[in-house]
């Protein structure tokens, strides 16, 4: 927990700040949309582009991986997990689960120090 907050202090003022920005990105890109298989490709690309862009603007010595999954709400079970082999002192991640009436969206950000 200590190492996570040290990372977030370098990346953001707090993990809450990063989560807030991710939610804002999702609300702005797909907030008002209904699941549409012909558009979902475009949406995930837009979400990823904004996330990476926001992260790079921080100008920190980090590499970033951002993953985004969008699934239609039909009652199907969905489970996601991730595991990392990294520098436990400097690296960190953050996951946001978001939903509207017709779809779920899970975005994960992984930050890996270069320093």
């Amino acid at each position, binding site marked *: 927990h200590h190492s996570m907050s040290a990372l977030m202090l370098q990346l953001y003022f707090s993990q809450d700040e990063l989560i807030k920005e991710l939610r804002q990105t999702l609300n702005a890109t797909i907030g008002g949309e209904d699941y549409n298989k012909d558009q979902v490709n475009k949406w995930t690309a837009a979400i990823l582009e904004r996330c990476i862009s926001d992260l790079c603007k921080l100008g920190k010595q980090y590499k970033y991986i*951002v993953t985004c999954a969008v699934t239609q709400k039909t009652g199907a079970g969905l489970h996601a997990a991730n595991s990392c082999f990294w520098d436990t002192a400097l690296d960190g991640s953050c996951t946001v689960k978001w939903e509207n009436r017709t779809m779920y969206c899970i975005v994960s950000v992984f930050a890996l120090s270069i320093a």
Partner: protein
Amino acid sequence: MDEFQAEDETTFVVEEVSKIIKESVEATIGGNTYQHNRVNQWTTNVVEQCLSQLSKLGKPFKYIVTCVIMQKNGAGLQTANACFWDNTTDGSCAVRWENKSMYCIVTVFGLAI
């Protein structure tokens, strides 16, 4: 000849990683039917097995492994990822696996140290 071997020891080899992923998925959920109360354990096992095999390669890389398991009932699923990294040294490999009752998508990201 020595130079070629050294390069192989420090690069992200997609075929090698793909094999590790496929073996991990098959070993964990091959032959199984989607079960809500087991899927938690399955995703954990898949990522842990992948990471274990990846670290055994002994290459100077950090790894991120993600695994999504979804029940097949007609719902649409779209996954995507973006990376801000070193194009010359870093790499990723995604494997999409399925059986009659579920989809499993595993992605490995390797970032050179």
